[in-house]
């Protein structure tokens, strides 16, 4: 009986496939909770670390994820072999990745990482790496999640994670700040970050003298290339691992980290405007129609407490913020980085702090990728919303991205959530603008067809015209899967 229960427990244990690089620990999930198994060495570190005042302060302030030693026998029994201890972490509402963050988010995450490292160094500890994947978002606040990254500072060492930190944080930030290169495609295709030598190809001679570039990018690339050539000339297959070229002191590493932190804090993006960044002043609504739209959304959103709401095509987040009072967590997604960054900066001064803004092309959401396509999960597999706002998005998906209307609605239906959807009709000036240069005028993009497809998958619980009938807004409840299959047939 006990054995059977043990086997059942093991079946309920889901490993986190992105947690394998550091052999000293593994993250896994069990009955909706997050755990981390530790090797004997990591467990010894943890027992020292949890007694330090600086670490307790970091947890209390929310800078580091809440963590406790797990003592329940049914959980500790899940791990065997090299694992000496199990930790339980406070769950993060939605896992996001650096290639979904804006410039401001990446900058704040970098700053927090350096701040945690600075405090660790001040108290005789260090961080063994510098990965952007060690940070997550609790609403609009970054949080450092990898407690096994803390280790006692060893006299003579510098910061091992410096190169990784440069590749994942500093170089992308410099490229965005000085060259306005989009972070999302760059970091989505380079999961380990941007190599300094590769980044050198993006910058001009003038850029070398801009803040942070000479040291962390130019000199870094040159030294790396030179060291690579020097190593290639030395034929020593049994050579010992590389050693720190200069005996470092904790003071030197601490001052270096503080200087990088100051540099990161001063980085600013280039000023500019995109099609959607000033949406609140340039949208096509008059005050009355906008009030009607807000009224409709609010009426259906405030009816209950939502666990997780997605605002797909959120722009500068007017409706995501409206939802935030009625939901535990809100994920606001848009493909316009500046619009999302504008939202992020606005959110930083607001409460409730439960909105996480993300940058993503909705016609090409983040896929499964990394080692065996399992290391970083697709956007579709990461969250389970019970409410979706999909306002004035459908015409972009159907007309601009040429996604069939049926496919698009099936995608929305696949979340099995209630949906507030705004259909932008074919006579609306925004639709006409999208159709202007297209030979295919999408004759099947009609209100009647939309309603027919929507009705096959959802119950249309409420509907209202907007902008004198050129748009319509709907509150849709998903039909049970069998019913929607019958309607479709």
């Amino acid at each position, binding site marked *: 009986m006990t054995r059977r229960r043990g086997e059942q427990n093991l079946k309920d244990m889901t490993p986190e496939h992105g947690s394998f*690089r*550091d*052999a*000293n620990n593994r993250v896994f999930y069990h009955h909706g909770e997050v755990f981390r198994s530790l090797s004997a060495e990591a467990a010894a570190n943890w027992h020292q670390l949890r007694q330090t005042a600086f670490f307790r302060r970091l947890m209390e302030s929310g800078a580091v994820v809440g963590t406790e030693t797990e003592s329940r026998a049914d959980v500790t029994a899940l791990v065997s072999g090299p694992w000496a201890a199990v930790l339980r972490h406070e769950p993060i509402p939605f896992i996001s990745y650096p290639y979904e963050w804006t410039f401001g988010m990446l900058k704040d995450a970098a700053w927090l990482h350096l701040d945690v490292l600075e405090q660790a160094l001040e108290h005789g500890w260090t961080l*063994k*790496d510098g990965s952007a994947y060690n940070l997550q978002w609790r609403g609009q606040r970054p949080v450092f999640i990898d407690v096994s990254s803390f280790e006692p500072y*060893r*006299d*003579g*060492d*510098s*910061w*091992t*994670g*410096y*190169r*990784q930190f*440069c590749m994942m944080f500093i170089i992308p930030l410099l490229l965005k700040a000085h060259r306005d290169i989009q972070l999302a495609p760059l970091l989505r295709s380079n999961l380990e970050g941007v190599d300094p030598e590769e980044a050198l190809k993006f910058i001009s001679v003038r850029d070398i003298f801009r803040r942070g570039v000479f*040291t962390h990018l130019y*000199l*870094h690339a*040159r*030294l*790396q*290339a*030179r*060291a*690579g*050539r*020097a*190593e290639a*000339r*030395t034929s020593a297959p049994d050579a*010992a*691992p*590389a*050693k*720190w*070229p*200069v*005996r*470092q*002191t904790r*003071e*030197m*590493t601490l*001052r*270096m980290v*503080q*200087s990088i932190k100051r540099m990161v804090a001063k980085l600013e993006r280039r000023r500019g405007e995109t099609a959607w960044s000033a949406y609140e002043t340039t949208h096509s609504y008059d005050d009355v129609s906008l009030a009607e739209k807000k009224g409709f959304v609010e009426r259906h959103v405030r009816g209950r407490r939502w666990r997780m709401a997605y605002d797909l095509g959120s722009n500068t987040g007017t409706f995501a913020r409206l939802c935030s009072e009625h939901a535990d967590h809100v994920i606001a997604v848009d493909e316009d980085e500046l619009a999302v960054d504008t939202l992020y900066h606005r959110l930083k001064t607001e409460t409730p702090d439960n909105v996480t803004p993300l940058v993503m092309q909705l016609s090409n959401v983040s896929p499964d990728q990394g080692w065996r396509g399992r290391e970083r999960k697709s956007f579709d597999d990461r969250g389970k919303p019970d409410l979706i706002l999909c306002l004035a998005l459908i015409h972009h998906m159907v007309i601009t991205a040429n996604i069939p209307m049926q496919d698009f609605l099936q995608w929305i239906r696949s979340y099995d959530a209630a949906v507030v959807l705004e259909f932008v009709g074919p006579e609306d000036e925004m639709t006409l603008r999208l159709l202007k240069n297209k030979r295919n005028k999408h004759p099947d993009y009609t209100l009647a067809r939309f309603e027919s497809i929507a009705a096959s998958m959802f119950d249309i619980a409420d509907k209202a015209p907007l902008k004198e009938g050129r748009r319509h807004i709907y509150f849709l409840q998903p039909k049970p899967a069998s019913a929607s299959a019958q309607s479709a047939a």
Partner: protein
Amino acid sequence: MTETPKNVAWTALLGGAFYLISTCPSLAYLDPGSGSMLLTAILGILAATTYTLKGYFHKVTALFRKNRLEAGDRAGQTKD
């Protein structure tokens, strides 16, 4: 590969630095990269030196500030 004087000098500098003042090897799971290790060494020295010099600078300027403050106080007292 051609051994230019520049290359020889560079290898000597790098090798010398590695040989002369090295510590025990890093056992972390990450490869810190030889070039990056050299850079962190340079940055560490620069940051620590700048910090120390700034400290001295503040101490020196504090002397003048103190003098000015005292002079100001005296001036204030005379005025009263």
